[in-house]
């Protein structure tokens, strides 16, 4: 029996300004996590990552990140990705 595949997204940082970006289904790099293409098939995920790795003039360090399905839609599985999606957990200097 194969293990069920954890859904994924492709994320990276914008080359020019460094901000966190997500690969969309129409090959754009979006700022919002909610625009990310959710990849539910392992082979698709690998292909999208290969596509992203070919985008080195647009982004830095693309990788696959796990997501979970919630009633409100997909959400990052790991808290690190939650921070990447939402920014520091406090404001500036406070």
């Amino acid at each position, binding site marked *: 029996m194969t293990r069920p595949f954890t859904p994924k997204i492709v994320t990276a940082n914008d*080359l*020019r300004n*460094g901000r*966190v970006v997500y690969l969309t289904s129409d090959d754009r790099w979006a700022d919002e996590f909610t625009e990310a293409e959710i990849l539910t098939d392992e082979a698709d995920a690998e292909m999208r990552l290969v596509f992203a790795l070919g985008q080195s003039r647009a982004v830095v*360090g693309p990788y696959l990140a796990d997501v979970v399905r919630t009633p409100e839609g997909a959400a990052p599985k790991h808290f690190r990705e939650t*921070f990447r999606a939402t920014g520091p*957990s*406090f404001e500036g*200097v*406070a």
Partner: protein
Amino acid sequence: MYVQTEFDRAFLAERNRQFRAQVARRLDGSLTEEEFKPLRLMNGVYLQLHAYMLRVAIPYGTLDSARMEVLAEIAERWDRGFGHFTTRQNIQYNWPALVDIPDMLDRLADAGLHAVQTSGNTIRNVTADHFAGAAADEIADPRPVAELIRQWSTDHPEFQFLPRKFKIAVTGSPIDRAVTKAHDIGLRMLERGGEAGFEVIVGGGLGRTPMIGEVMRDFLPTEDLLPYLESIVSTYNRLGRRNNKYKARIKITVREEGLESFRARVEERFAELRPGFTGADRGILAQIEAMFAPPALRDADTGTYHSLRAENPAFRAFTDVNVAPHKAPGHGILTVSLKAHGAAPGDATADQMHALARIARVHGHDELRISHEQNVILPHVHLSSLPAVWDGLRAAGLATANVGLASDIIACPGMDYCALATARSIPVAREIATALRGVENEVGNLKIKISGCVNACGHHHVGHIGILGLERSGVETYQITLGGDATENAAIGVRAGPGFSAGEIVPAVERLVAAYLELRRDGDETFIETHRRVGMAPLKTALYGTGELRDAA
């Protein structure tokens, strides 16, 4: 203060020109990220969680007002209006765009500031006692030697690709405020029979394998300093484990090779190198020393200072806690806390940096220091100026009277910013500072240090209470170590037991502090002294109780 030479200016301009071209080649696709990464790291540019980060060196923590103004301007023009002072006397900007960094570096270079060797496997920013040149307990000012080491190590052709990063700290006082025993090389200035020299400590470091450095030479004459340093780094460069990142620091090399054998190899190399140092280095040191002549301190009446202390309890508390003895009568060393209760440790806004620059210019002989404890120091303040300084600091939100107290916490950026972090640090620091605010004056000296991963940028191993943030089963968990010490009595803290969740860590620290107040002999016995006297057991009980939880440890 060190004044840039034409050579320095030309070097920085050329270095920045090269980096500007490297950025352009990365953007147009001529360089891959793999090719570009080591180049950007050599110039202090990291890619962090949310953005790039630019780390700027503040050599041996010394600044004047003009440089502080430029640091503020960088934050305003190219970042989000603030900067983060680090445990290595650097400042980090958390939100620069890569396309802007060449302009930022050029502006920094105008003021003689740079980001060279603030990353990469090179000799990093040389750090020093932040009270240098002012402390009553000092033998000599360590900064001229630190500047000499900066010049020797910058772009040193043999040491651009060391097995791993390399950190050097210098203190001129027997009271160690520079954590010399937790550096790759720690230098402690000494005098023996009228001759100036150094105790040379090698192989200290924190990180995943924390170690206290060992004495390599108990007395090294000043004239032998550079050839001896070169011999140590050269020997390490040959022996260091390039095949394993976790065993590549000199602390591992020294232990694997054995201290005696490593020392013998260094001495052998020293015999080869020493004849090549024919005195140019000493000539340069003499020139640098002249630039660090003490300021012209004044002799003035201190009556206004004493009368304000008598009538204003807030001013009295501020000066009691934040002012340290100066070597000159009528003066004090003022530490400005960047740890307002509930704030992010080490963060300062551009407005605050401007205010500090103004105050230093008017009242502080134009000198500022950044401490490894992430505070700002005005090293030479006449006591009669303190009322005006206090007013200025209050207006800028910088008059928190907590230096050395429980809320004066070292914290790394943690997972709010850092790509390496395994848990958050800053929110934990903010909550602990807020929770202990009511008791911290009663508690007295207590060093709490927090790191968000095993790399230990927050120095947790040498905190009286150390906190290490990790991930366990997908959630943040915090381990407590006790008994660490960052001073001349350096010690690595011992883990108390199982970790605490993010919701449990602050109450756990509160229980530790409450237990200390119960256990201490009297108000003069500090947390670390009580811990040494009573041992771990009662503090463990405070953390874990006496029943099942304790057994689970």
